[in-house]
């Protein structure tokens, strides 16, 4: 076989990212993404997203002209540069390239794009903290959230994972501003705030929040207000799914997060967390057993509430509440008319009373819960 070398290929000029990529040529260099100020690096992207959403919202709410469509098209297609080491060029119409670049800036960044009802793009750019011990990963900061981005339950958001599957993530980013108002956190750094949110997520919300609760919380927020019911659900889930011994060992600073002026005011959780250190081992071990019984009771009470029949629709036929709820799950805001029905109001009162009773029974373990 004759092998004759042909002309040498010309290598492109190296970029600042190549040194990071090459690794082998500079073994003493950093092998992980360089530490950047993410907000500075992403400022041009955030600005572009704001400009895009401004025009989009006008078109969606007030209408417009073809010139505005043209302006939107330019905002999507035109390239712009980020303030990263490579001054990389991206555009909103190449979301895959944009995600690759974000991955280089930080492995914790996630960009999700969803269609709005008008079939236009809406964006969520967030930072995620992985919790390898729990079922969900934690969204600790929303760097950008488009108005109208579809989030049905504020506690959860669906993000595409590295394995190509969409999964629910717990949205603790909504609590970020509350954490920064806590005493001692007014001048806290981003890392300290992340740390508290991670602890809250890992020790409390991983157990207290679950995607199975979405129906109950949807009913509580859109049909009739059911605050005690929601509190009872979170308390029961934490008692059943959480490791109270481990929680007891990591209580520092968590209790005040659930106080009335805290990050997430929740009296049931506040009482539980405050009283945990005083419980004996036997009382702690008794918690899940009691919670299992009380969970059955509360589920039954909720089922009775959903079976309540109300006159519905143009023909005023009696329809059970569960059918109305399931059949209109994508337009829950239109169900507020149900609050006027006395049958439903009565059923809600009974459910609330049962929830309060369940909470009291669970928290009367020991004498320290008051």
């Amino acid at each position, binding site marked *: 076989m004759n092998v004759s070398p042909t002309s040498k290929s010309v290598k492109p000029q190296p970029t600042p990212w190549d040194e990071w990529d090459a690794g082998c040529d500079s073994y003493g260099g950093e092998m992980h993404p360089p530490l950047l100020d993410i907000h500075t690096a992403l400022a041009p992207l955030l600005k572009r997203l704001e400009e895009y959403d401004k025009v989009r919202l006008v078109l969606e709410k007030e209408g417009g002209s073809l010139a505005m469509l043209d302006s939107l098209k330019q905002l999507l297609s035109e390239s712009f540069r980020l303030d990263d080491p490579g001054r990389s060029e991206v555009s909103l119409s190449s*979301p895959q390239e944009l995600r690759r670049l974000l991955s280089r800036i930080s492995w914790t960044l996630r960009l999700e794009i969803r269609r709005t009802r008008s079939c236009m793009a809406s964006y969520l750019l967030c930072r995620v903290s992985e919790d390898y011990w729990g079922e969900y990963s934690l969204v600790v900061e929303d760097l950008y959230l488009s108005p109208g981005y579809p989030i049905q339950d504020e506690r959860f958001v669906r993000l595409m994972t590295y394995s190509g599957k969409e999964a629910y993530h717990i949205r603790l980013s909504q609590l970020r501003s509350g954490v920064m108002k806590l005493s001692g956190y007014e001048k806290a750094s981003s890392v300290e705030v992340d740390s508290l949110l991670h602890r809250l997520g890992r020790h409390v919300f991983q157990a207290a929040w679950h995607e199975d609760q979405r129906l109950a919380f949807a009913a509580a927020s859109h049909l009739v207000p059911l605050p005690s019911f929601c509190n009872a659900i979170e308390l029961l889930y934490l008692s059943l799914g959480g490791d109270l011994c481990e929680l007891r060992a990591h209580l520092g600073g968590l209790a005040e997060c659930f106080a009335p002026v805290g990050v997430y005011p929740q009296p049931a959780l506040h009482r539980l967390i405050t009283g945990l250190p005083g419980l004996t081992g036997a009382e702690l071990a008794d918690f899940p057993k009691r919670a299992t019984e009380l969970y059955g009771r509360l589920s039954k009470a909720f089922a009775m509430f959903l079976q309540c029949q109300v006159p519905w*629709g143009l023909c005023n036929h009696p329809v059970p509440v569960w059918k109305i709820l399931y059949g*209109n799950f994508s337009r829950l805001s239109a169900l507020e008319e149900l609050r006027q029905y006395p049958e439903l109001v009565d059923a809600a009162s009974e459910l609330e009373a049962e929830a309060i009773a369940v909470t009291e029974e669970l928290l009367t373990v020991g004498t320290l819960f008051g």
Partner: protein
Amino acid sequence: MEAVQNRIFLAYLSSKVYSHRDAVEAYRIFAASQVELCATSIKETIDAAVIFGDLFPAIDNLQLHPVVASLLRRLVTATGRFSAALEGLPEEDYLILGREWVLENCRSIIEVLEELKESQVAEELKDEASFFQKIEDNMRIPEGSRIATAICLAPLAGPLAPTLRSEYDNTGLYLNCAISKELPEEARQTLNEFAEAMNAAVSQKKSWQDTRSDVLELQMRTTPFESGPLSGTPIDGHDVQVKLGEDTTGKGAVFDSPLELVDDPQAHARLIEEARPLTQALRRLLYPHFKSEPYLERFRASGSLDPARLALGDFSEAVYRHYPVLEQMNHRGGALLVLACDGSASLDIDQISMLRLLTTAWLMSTVGSDVKVIAGIYHSDHLQGLYQPPPVVHWLFHPRKTPAIGQQDAVRALLSLDQGSGAQSDALQLMFILDEAVQVARGRKIYLVVLSDTNWNNSFHNSNLSGQQEVEAFFKDAYSRLGSRLNVTLVALAPNEQETGFEKKIDTVVSIPANEFDDPEAVARKIGVYVASQIRSGGSSRSEHHERSRS
């Protein structure tokens, strides 16, 4: 009529066929929640009113276009009466009820039309075409109000007038904005360009990812009672065939998925540092890609006859010039390096650790070069929905199937690999990996590196061959298909015997005994010898090897 028919059919299934289960009613309720009334067509509005009308809230609370609201109000009222009558109705009365229902709906639609247009329409309706033409006439933008020069768009999220047809394509709602046929070409172009840019920004292109939830919702919304994208077998493997002999072919199914990347920068840096001696040794390896080009060779006569005058004489072109094929290095496209790693439970911790180091080293050695890489770990794994763990290939790096943005990033997928699991089906899974490689390589040379403990497993229950014989058959089949385009290296990690049995059957065998695992320098020297042998031979697949294997 179709809507009424479907509604009656659903009631029949609920009450008579599946009366002990609420599945049909539950699905109807779910489908009702998916209906989008703010941007819809006439047909969808009628379907929604007839099939789901009993579940909708008060029309005034829905913020609908006046035409949609008016149509819904009338149709839902009719639906309520007929749905109540449907309960407990004998089957033989379905047709009578259905006919009355359809007529009532037609009357409702005509009332709506009469609200839009002053003149009576009923006598002029002869067929469906003229019926819809009447609707379109009433939808047309009045003269002088929104004409081409100052085209205004209604609020896109607001309630829109219903269209005549359901046309959900990638542009979705934009068709609602451009119903008028009087739009000038420039306006249409603007709309099309906008739709293309928006489509590029919002649609999902990755084929290895699950369908995004909002994309799935849109698909299911338009086809509520047809088989959806989730129907059928949720887990489909890839059918693979391996020629085991003259008349025997082994068949099997292999599943694949990407391996998740680990977010641990320190562990990532540690693994790359640990593999550095091996990476340095491998970086000197060349993976040349050759291209075959015919060139013109002129016949040069020797002796006293002047060869330059031959062209003036009478000659035969077959003698005067011919076109031999020259194989030369092609710098315009790199070769494809394929790493197939045995991740089965037969590998102990030390073997897995060495496998991780070698895979890391091979990945890192190609960073910054033109060489393309695909790398995967093959074994068996539990998959949801399957009782027995099937053969699975977990991709570490694949241009179309993994999220890693480069070879260095792909090393993150190795961080969680601390032990082998499952059982491998060597021949079957190697054939699958090679088939993937052929698709990615697109004619380029393929360097297949198999990292294994050489405890070969049977892949096919119906074959009488041993695991090793099946793998031999695979290599033979691969060489016969790909010829000089394939170069195979087997890296045997602590093999049971001194010779693996493949020394004369494939291009290279590198054997790493167990006592060298703790000495990366020794392994690096061995790799260096292997590298040198590759360079001496030009990196080309030795034709004598496959000649031998063929014989």
